[in-house]
């Protein structure tokens, strides 16, 4: 047998032993996926039903957030991030990145609070509370008026100050 033929035969045999799929794993049910899928996209995909506003958010903030993030989200220098401030600072010698000055999408604020805050009890806030807290933080940053009602339709419409501040890296 020629070397090439032998090679081809070996390759075929190896191929035969390596199926395209292995049949491992179990089908995921729609319920399993719905329970695990917490991703919220900039276009609003993934946002649940519910609504909230800054006035309600201020009250929840006092109970669940103020201890770490300080009065009106001012933060604690070197200890906890500020949730306000820095608008107009990005192109200066002292850029201050906050939700208000830097984050390009309001949906990311919702997604992050929902998945990761409060730091000691993430995942414990019902959707209405997350809408209200998001509204409060956006209101503190002067991005939405105090009486704006946020829900799955209105949240993706909020234009963040730094919405156009990002470019795709070349490397």
């Amino acid at each position: 047998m020629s070397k090439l033929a032998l090679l081809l035969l070996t390759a075929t045999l190896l191929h035969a032993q390596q199926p395209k799929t292995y049949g491992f794993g179990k089908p995921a049910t729609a319920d399993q996926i719905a329970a695990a899928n917490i991703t919220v996209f900039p276009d609003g995909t993934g946002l649940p039903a519910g609504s909230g506003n800054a006035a309600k958010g201020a009250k929840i903030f006092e109970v669940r957030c103020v201890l770490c993030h300080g009065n009106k989200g001012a933060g604690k220098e070197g200890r906890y991030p500020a949730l306000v401030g820095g608008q107009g600072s990005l192109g200066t010698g002292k850029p201050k990145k906050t939700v208000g000055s830097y984050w390009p999408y309001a949906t990311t604020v919702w997604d992050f609070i929902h998945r990761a805050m409060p730091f000691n009890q993430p995942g414990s806030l019902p959707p209405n509370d997350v809408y209200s807290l998001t509204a409060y933080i956006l209101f503190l940053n002067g991005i939405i008026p105090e009486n704006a009602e946020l829900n799955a339709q209105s949240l993706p419409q909020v234009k963040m100050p730094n919405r156009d501040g990002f470019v795709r890296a070349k490397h």
Partner: protein
Amino acid sequence: MRKPDRRRFLTTTAAIAGLTSCSSKDQPPAAQASLGAHMRPYGEPSPYEQQPVRVIRELTASKGTGSSRTPLQDLYGTITPSPLHYERHHAGVPSIDPAQHQLLIHGMVDKPLTFTPAEIHRFPSFSRIYFLECGGNMVGDLAGNPPPTVQASHGLVSGTEWTGVPLATILREAGLQPEAKWIIAEGADHSRMARSIPIEKCLDDTLIAYGQNGEALRPEQGYPLRLLVPGWEGNVSVKWLRRLFVTDKPAMSVKETAYYSELRPDGKAEQFSFVMEARSVITKPSGGQSLQGPGFYEITGLSWTGTGKIAKVEVSTDGGKSWAEAKLQQPVLDKALVRFLYPWQWDGKDAVLQSRCTDETGYTQPTRDQLIATRGPHSGYHYNAIKSWYVRADGSVKHV
């Protein structure tokens, strides 16, 4: 902090002293008078070695949001012992029982599936040595505030033989649909940290890893399953992997917008700058160590690049006026730490030591001035400039 390298530089002197005292008693050196210790199931370092340790730094007042750094100055070769692998967490280290853990893959796939870690182990396995580095490594040097040791400045990088399953294998199992452009990987940590990764990289060399240097992953490295995205900023190698969401768009998660984006001087930020470009650093002699008088020293350090292989490392002992090529320890591997070695006769005068690498694409590590001229001082991530160590006539080594 202790000074282990002072000890290492002293070994030669100690050995000579030991020989003299032994020969005076007319005994062969190092002979053991009594029977050695019994064997033990899990080995430990010699009690005569001062155990190198990670240095931990919390970034907020809540524990679990910081990093720990690899003691690069204390290690040989290119593999980081698993207990010394650097860490960067956003909500602590979860303790996961693999019997309770599942990985879900859903979205643009024909068959959404769940896998237990045991099921992942059944797929054909794949092992390879890669570096892993935090996108924020060396940020102190960028900020013009270089820390005193190489551990503190460059210690958010480690080298490991990872074992796992190519992500492509799992995607084939689930039946990837043609519209798929991104995969959002999510961890089971308290903050359910998530990153979006372009599908090309997922199908190229990305692994679902469960092995670290021949053992199961350490909890700090994502036990029981983690993503391992070779050559890219460490944050995308999501630990404690629980979910892969196949989509046609990125999630714009907090860690790919507010963080791990590079602010330019014009106020715009570059996003999805994944690749860790070529870099190198001298680990010995380095800050905090001291030389014991003029004579021969081996200058050694590490170089690596997310673009592929390191082609060359040069060393300067005069602050960058002249350069000479260092020896690269073979084999030089793709997207892995490379050890470089350079023999040096120290004349006992002030000296500034630097290393500079070039990757196989011809890209050369920039100076700090060059880097800041193009990216500005607030880019925050992916800093890779040449590092200097200042050796003083008294033998002490300081950062510059």
